[in-house]
């Protein structure tokens, strides 16, 4: 248990959350699903602010954007018809790959991103989809690309700003498009050693119109492999292109070594997992190798 906690707040609106954050002068932690906060084991926390009643659980589909509130659970994403319809259900598939049913009923999308884990499984599909986030602090709300959010969170700690929602632009529906999420962990429910999300559009002759590739757990933060994307554009999708893309992936990753895997294994695995993702995209776009 957390025996230093003096107060547990359950604010029912965003302004109330921000007021509480300001008042607690850095001694409060925000909690939603608790799947990271509780496990992390920092028991020195004095104030807890529960976000799950602050009105941030929603999925709204607009014309060109899908907006997902920060406390939407991974189980919600797995089940939502709006999310199933977005990029061939990419986000539903990624959500379903996170932990166990019990974990996914608690874990929230916002928590997955704000916690700043390099292995966050929702980060790569959202990067591949060019998602933005909206955060709020004492000075108001700011929208920024997800990649920028990860950069900032790394510099000054994510806990000072409240993540409000994630905005996902609807990807183009026309043409032969495919999306894929792939992860590799020691077991189905374990953390990713590598995860990758990719998107691909092929033209009528099987050439790549555009490719997107995001990689997770193999650098300090999940990132878009832009050199791989530009290498693929305009080329015919075949085995030699996949091999070249794989080589480039291995140059771009900066994996760590820990109890789960060595650096070399993670680097090799990055190539394999990225390759599987790109191949699945192509298959979904109607081109099987």
């Amino acid at each position, binding site marked *: 248990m957390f025996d230093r906690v003096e107060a547990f707040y359950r604010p029912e609106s965003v302004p109330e959350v921000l007021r509480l954050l300001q008042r607690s002068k850095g001694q409060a932690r925000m909690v939603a699903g608790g799947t990271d906060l509780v496990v992390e084991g920092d028991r020195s926390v004095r104030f807890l602010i529960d976000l799950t009643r602050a009105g941030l659980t929603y999925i709204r589909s607009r014309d060109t954007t899908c907006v997902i509130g920060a406390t939407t659970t991974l*189980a919600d994403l797995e089940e939502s018809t709006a999310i199933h319809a977005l990029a061939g259900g990419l986000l539903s598939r990624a959500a379903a790959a996170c932990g166990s049913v019990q974990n996914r009923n608690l874990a929230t999308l916002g928590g997955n991103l704000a916690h700043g884990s390099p292995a966050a499984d929702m980060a790569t599909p959202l990067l591949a989809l060019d998602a933005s986030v909206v955060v709020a602090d004492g000075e108001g709300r700011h929208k920024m690309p997800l990649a920028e959010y990860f950069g900032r969170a790394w510099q000054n700690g994510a806990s000072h700003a409240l993540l409000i929602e994630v905005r996902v632009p609807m990807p183009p529906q026309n043409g032969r498009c495919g999306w894929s999420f792939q992860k590799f962990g020691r077991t189905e429910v374990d953390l990713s050693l590598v995860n990758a999300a990719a998107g691909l559009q092929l033209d009528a002759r099987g050439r790549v119109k555009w490719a997107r590739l995001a990689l997770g757990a193999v650098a300090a933060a999940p990132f878009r492999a832009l050199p791989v994307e530009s290498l693929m554009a305009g080329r015919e999708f075949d085995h030699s292109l996949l091999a070249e893309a794989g080589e480039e992936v291995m140059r771009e990753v900066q994996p760590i070594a820990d109890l789960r895997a060595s650096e070399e294994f993670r680097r090799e695995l990055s190539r394999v997992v990225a390759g599987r993702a790109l191949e699945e995209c192509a298959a979904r776009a109607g081109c099987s190798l």
Partner: protein
Amino acid sequence: MKTMSLCVTVNGESKQWTIAPGDLLLDVLRREGYFGVKRGCEKGECGACTVLVHGKPVNSCLIFAAQVEGGEILTIEGLAQGDTLDPLQEAFLDHGAVQCGFCTPGMILAAKALLDRQPHPTEEQVREALAGNYCRCTGYRKPVEAVLAAAARRKVPTEVAR
């Protein structure tokens, strides 16, 4: 120590408890005598502490008790109707799916949540639903068989599926 009050419904009964603001749901339930909620890894990995909150299985070791204010909780103690066991409990006994019994409450509750949503699951769906419940004695084959048998025995018309 600061305290606060918690109002919840547990196994259909309204409860009002005094808790510490930092109490986890697992701690509170065991303190109040629900020993079917097992303390296992306390990291959300093993599933022994699984309870249903509003019908959904969650790790009670990862959720603060205060977050469940006003909520409905089902523990293994609330599953049998008097002396009549739930078909899932019967099936676990019939199939020898219980050995030491430590993982059993969590497994049965995870399975119940599945059957309430999906009365006729495939084996793969059962395995997915139980993936968050570790067993260190019998393995998973017998529990999976038991859940499939219980599904066959529960005469739930498909259209009632929520």
